[in-house]
């Protein structure tokens, strides 16, 4: 841990990524008789795009749920920013700077795009029901600066046209985009994306890949990404973890993964769409 925390890492593209910001160690997660995750360890470095791949039911989503506190593993440790993390509630983890999107879109369907993304700034709003004297002084200023951030995100994701639209009415691809916007609004240190491109057409996938790369490059946001499309993964990931039946069967750069025989046999050899 100590060494990794300072070492940097040079990727295949010659990008230098930072020291480890999150590390899962020997995680085991069971649901009754089902072992969703079995003794898995890996790390995520600051500023990288880290992909998690594997067939359906491999335990990928469960892993993200462990990282953001929805699931509590029976065994193992999560280290974040060089500290062993005590068991926490998801909302506390959000305050630590981890934001996410969901495999099955989880938006506030009755709210507009604007309100959804604004709600993503929850951790940046001063707390207390009474502290926030409505629309007065400090609260007004804060609301204004939050608005500004939200507008930047809306511009960045090119969704100005649907600012005021109730998100429940939006097509699937745009909903995914709004959900990304809401996660970005938190200005997270670590962004967890669970199949952000599932169900998208080629063009939508290209847009989404571009947004993810831009976020990563412009704001230095660390991204952990679950994705089935190997083309996309090889394109945008710096390093890849491969899971199968709850076990880790590979971990390395895209090039290493492509050559890894175990991974080829278990996953890459077959089609996944």
């Amino acid at each position, binding site marked *: 841990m100590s060494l990794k925390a300072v070492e940097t890492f040079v990727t295949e593209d010659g990008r230098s990524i930072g020291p480890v910001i999150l590390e899962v160690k020997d995680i085991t997660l069971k649901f009754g008789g089902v072992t969703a995750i079995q003794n898995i360890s890996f790390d995520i470095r600051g500023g990288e795009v880290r992909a998690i791949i594997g067939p359906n039911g491999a335990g990928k989503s469960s892993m993200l749920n462990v990282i*953001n506190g929805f699931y509590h593993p029976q065994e193992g440790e999560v280290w974040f920013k060089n500290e062993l993390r005590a068991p926490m*509630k998801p*909302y506390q983890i959000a305050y630590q700077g981890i934001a996410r999107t969901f495999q099955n879109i989880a*938006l*506030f369907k009755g709210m507009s795009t604007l309100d959804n993304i604004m709600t993503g700034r*929850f951790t940046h709003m001063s*707390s207390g029901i009474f502290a926030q004297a409505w629309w007065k002084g400090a609260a007004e200023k804060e609301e204004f600066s939050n608005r500004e951030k939200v507008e930047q995100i809306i511009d960045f994701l090119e969704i100005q046209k649907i600012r005021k639209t109730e998100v429940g009415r939006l097509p699937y691809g745009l909903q995914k985009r709004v959900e990304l916007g809401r996660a970005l609004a*938190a200005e997270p240190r670590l962004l967890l994306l669970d199949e952000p491109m599932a169900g998208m057409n080629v063009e939508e996938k290209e847009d989404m890949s571009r947004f993810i790369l831009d976020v990563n490059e412009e704001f230095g946001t660390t991204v952990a990404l679950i994705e089935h499309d190997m083309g996309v993964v090889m394109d945008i990931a710096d390093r890849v973890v491969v899971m199968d039946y709850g076990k880790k069967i590979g971990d390395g750069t895209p090039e290493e993964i492509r050559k890894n025989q175990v991974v080829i046999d278990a996953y890459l050899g077959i089609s996944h769409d």
Partner: protein
Amino acid sequence: MFLFDPFFWEVVISGLLAGVMYALVALGFVLIFKASGIFNFAQGVLALFAALTLVGFQTGQIPFAHLLEALFGLHASHWGEGMNTVLALFLSLVVMIGLAWLIVKIVLRPLVNQEGIILFMATIGLAFVLEGVGDLMWGANVKRLDVGLPEGPSDFLLDNTGMFIEKLEISAAVVAIILVVTLMIFSQYTKMGRALRAVADDHQAALSVGISLETIWWVVWSISGLVALVAGVMWGAKSGVQFSLSLIALKALPVLMLGGFTSIPGAIIGGLMIGVGEKMFEFYIGPMIGGATENWFAYMLALLFLLFRPQGLFGEKIIERV
């Protein structure tokens, strides 16, 4: 023409005023249902408990006096003359907020992720416990509640329009309207309000942006406590604080069927419709069929409505998944 008949307008207006009160009680249900998916059977008892507490503070009752007498032989039932209404209202609100906190910690937290029906049953239990505690704390006798609101018919309306409208009902409606508008502003423009709507829409997503469910539940049950306090005070001022007060919840049920369980505008419009419909029916049809229609009219209207629009006036359309 009936439109120029002051009696017609008297019926409409008193119906609207009663409707505002129904809407208020229904609103308490909707808030909790939206935020936590719980149908809160205890809402009526909350109103009773709030009113009992208010009277207790106002008249200087010692809580649990009978219990203290039985256990320690203390004979005093009052600590003094009581306190002024404003202070008593404030302290009652504090008690309701404290109660909300206890409910979240003792009832809701252990039952998180349980089925709706289990939570519903928990609130039935809560209703009985609260009724018992209310009895034990403040006694079971009927109490007069006077919060200093004007009483008797409005002379102004009587002289100028010939309508007989109770001042108390007008004030109750005004207070209810202020409360509803305040809640709307709170929910639209504050961080907590936005969080409340977020939780109502999607628990998981709300958690992921940093919203604590327990805090939201506490806020929601506190607001319901406030709504219950206002409803309890208004109802109590009209007909005394007694255990039948908890039955006002039964008035809210048809309102909810009409307005939908998840819609705040639905609760308001539904309440008004039932208030007006009930009074009109009672005055124009009632005499022909022997009166006492107010007991069942609301349910009949709601049932008719259910046949044609099961999701209520503003509820989301329910589409069967196949």
